[in-house]
């Protein structure tokens, strides 16, 4: 068979990471919004992500797992260069994950403490992920400008997750909390717009590769469809935040922003897996390993998609509170 396995696995890794960013993005966003809600609302917010966060986080394991097993040479370089932000992210994810469990079981000031850990964990993980992305796309260059750029991406991703979290709450809650969520979503979208504008201006300066790929007429004209779609989706989210609009629309719009932004990013980097250093073919694992995994993925991934959709169907509708039924 003449399948280009490295390309297939790069696509799979991309899908896993995109799935992670969207899915865990909304629950990290909900976590970051916690301090803005009342205690009763916090319980509803946590209940809305309760059945999903474990599985959502598993997409990160799959994404990183595919990087490790399909592109082992890149795994060491990328995660070695990002060692400290990765540690920060992991600590954040740990705090968030266990705080989720502990906050319902603790009482009094303990519960309040775990609520803060839940917020802190969500925020730390989000900031670290954005920071890692910023370091990654610039090829881990050293220099104050590059670090500042990474921080900027980190802050923007936090805004992006807040947007996802808020629109998720618009979809899953009602009444006063939903009203609040609409207001949060508006702040989120302004935050994202500012962040994306700054990052878009800064990126071509930071990375020659990105500049060459995007500013190459007449291809540029076609490529402009992607940012145009992002802006369109942003406007769609803003307009559908009116109470009259259907509750699913803001979330769908926010997901669209992520899909278009991610496609743009993937286009910028391909075929590199370590920017400017390693292509996916250079970093790929031995064909025998890819072949063996390929069949597993072909069989198992549709099953995963199937029961994930099933789980989301089981828990569709508005959360009414009461975490454990």
């Amino acid at each position, binding site marked *: 068979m003449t399948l280009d396995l490295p390309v297939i696995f790069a696509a799979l890794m991309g899908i896993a990471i995109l799935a992670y960013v969207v899915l865990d993005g909304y629950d990290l966003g909900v976590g970051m919004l916690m301090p803005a809600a009342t205690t009763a609302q916090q319980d509803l917010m946590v209940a809305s992500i*309760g059945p999903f966060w*474990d599985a959502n986080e598993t997409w990160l*394991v799959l994404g990183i797992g595919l990087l490790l*097993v399909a592109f082992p040479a890149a*795994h*060491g370089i990328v995660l070695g260069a990002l060692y400290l932000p990765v540690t920060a992210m992991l600590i954040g994810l*740990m705090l968030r994950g266990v705080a989720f469990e502990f906050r319902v079981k603790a009482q009094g000031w303990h519960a309040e403490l775990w609520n803060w850990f839940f917020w802190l964990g969500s925020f730390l993980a989000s900031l670290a992920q954005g920071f890692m992305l910023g370091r990654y796309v610039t090829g881990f260059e050293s220099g104050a400008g590059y670090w500042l750029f990474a921080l900027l991406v980190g802050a923007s991703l936090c805004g992006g997750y807040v947007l996802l979290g808020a629109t998720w709450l618009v979809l899953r809650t009602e009444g006063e909390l939903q009203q609040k969520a609409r207001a949060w979503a508006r702040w989120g979208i302004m935050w994202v717009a500012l962040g994306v504008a700054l990052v878009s201006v800064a990126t071509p300066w930071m990375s020659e590769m990105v500049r060459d790929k995007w500013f190459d007429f007449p291809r540029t004209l076609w490529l402009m469809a992607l940012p145009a779609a992002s802006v369109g989706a942003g406007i769609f989210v803003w307009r559908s935040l009116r109470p009259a609009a259907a509750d699913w629309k803001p979330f769908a719009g926010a997901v669209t922003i992520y899909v278009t932004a991610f496609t743009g990013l993937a286009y910028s980097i391909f075929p590199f897996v370590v920017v400017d250093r390693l292509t996916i073919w250079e970093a790929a*694992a031995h064909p025998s*390993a890819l072949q063996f995994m390929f069949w597993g993925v072909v069989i198992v991934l549709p099953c*995963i998609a199937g029961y994930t959709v099933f789980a989301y169907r089981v828990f569709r509708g508005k959360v009414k509170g009461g975490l454990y039924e």
Partner: protein
Amino acid sequence: MDAAEAFILARTQFGLNIAFHILFPSLTIGLGWFLLYFRVRYECTKDAAWLATYKLWLKIFALSFAMGVVSGIVMSFQFGTNWPGYMNKVGAIAGPLLAYEVLTAFFLEATFLGIMLFGMNRVPGWMHIFSSVMVAAGTTLSAFWILALNSWMQTPAGYVVAGNQLIAGDWLAVIFNPSFPYRFTHMLLASGLTAAFAIAGLSAWRLLYEPSDRSATRTLRVGALVAAVLVPVQIFVGDLHGLNTLHHEPAKIAAIEGIWKTEKSAPLVLFAVPNEEKRRNDYAIEIPKVAALILTHDANGELRGLDDFEPDRPTVAPLFFGFRIMVGTGVSMLLLSWFGVWRLRRGEPPRALLWMFSAFTFSGWIATLAGWLVTEIGRQPWLVTGILRTADAAGKITGAELGASLTVYVLTYSLMLLAYFVVITHMAGKGAQA
């Protein structure tokens, strides 16, 4: 800081992380099947006490599972950062096994756990039971893949050399490598025992507060009975596993038994302080010929000593003591579970017995950790026996980065473990509520 120190830090960090992680799967693999039993009993009897029991243990399961998930994610990063040489050399074999674990087990467990936890009133009864089956099966499948990989590192098989790396020649031989069936069975039983003693122990704890709690009385019996059945099976399987190790990794056995020189009719060393410098046991208490008898089934049989393997042999002390802690814990578990089952059948248990079971709540963890240290340290200096040395797999992470992250991990893990103990003893103390 020099490379040697960074290497020690890398090992400490990875070892600490895995030791922390292994606690939770070792509980949840067994607990998943107990939960299924509780759930099915409720479905058959419609007795609210079974439902309350199920819900209490489901919460403890969810908490333990979350601890396992978050510490497991750390591992998926540390494989590459701490041991890049490992992936370079054997990634084509280790990688797919890990990938299959994520694909076939992790998503299954996580997704259906959501339905188990929050979906009881949203799906039909059979679907809820099916979810419980999927979660239990998922935890067991994940043990299958990770132990296939771990066993392969101990007793590699089915590989072909391709340039600088190894690739799989025969995947079935890779997965079902010589030590895998023993190790996998040993681990599943260990997990069953960990869960059984945790259930019995926490139920006994509850009964100390509230002697009339029906749910806790039941779960104490279930836990004690399962333990009483599984401990002897485990001792038998453990013995087979030991013989398998003697065949494939004789240096490990020599270190466990404290046999420094190849000899006939080696004695069984009950206790000693291994002296690495002088290569002998100090303060030894021995039973003549018994080690030879146990391991070769012949009192005059010859056992290879550590001198045969120099310099590629593990440090003796951790294996020697770790093994004795494991076996000692196992024997105490046998005595307590048998006595407990016998005493529980005669009527209300005395408080002293309840205290004993409470004290043994985490005995499974002690035995599992001790056994795991024996098998992993026993593989040194190899990361993959005969193929890759641990030192050759280390990465370029600096000592400062390792030290900083290690400190943060230690703090976080201590906080998590403390909170975990407080919460589960509190939950168990309150008991099951319908």
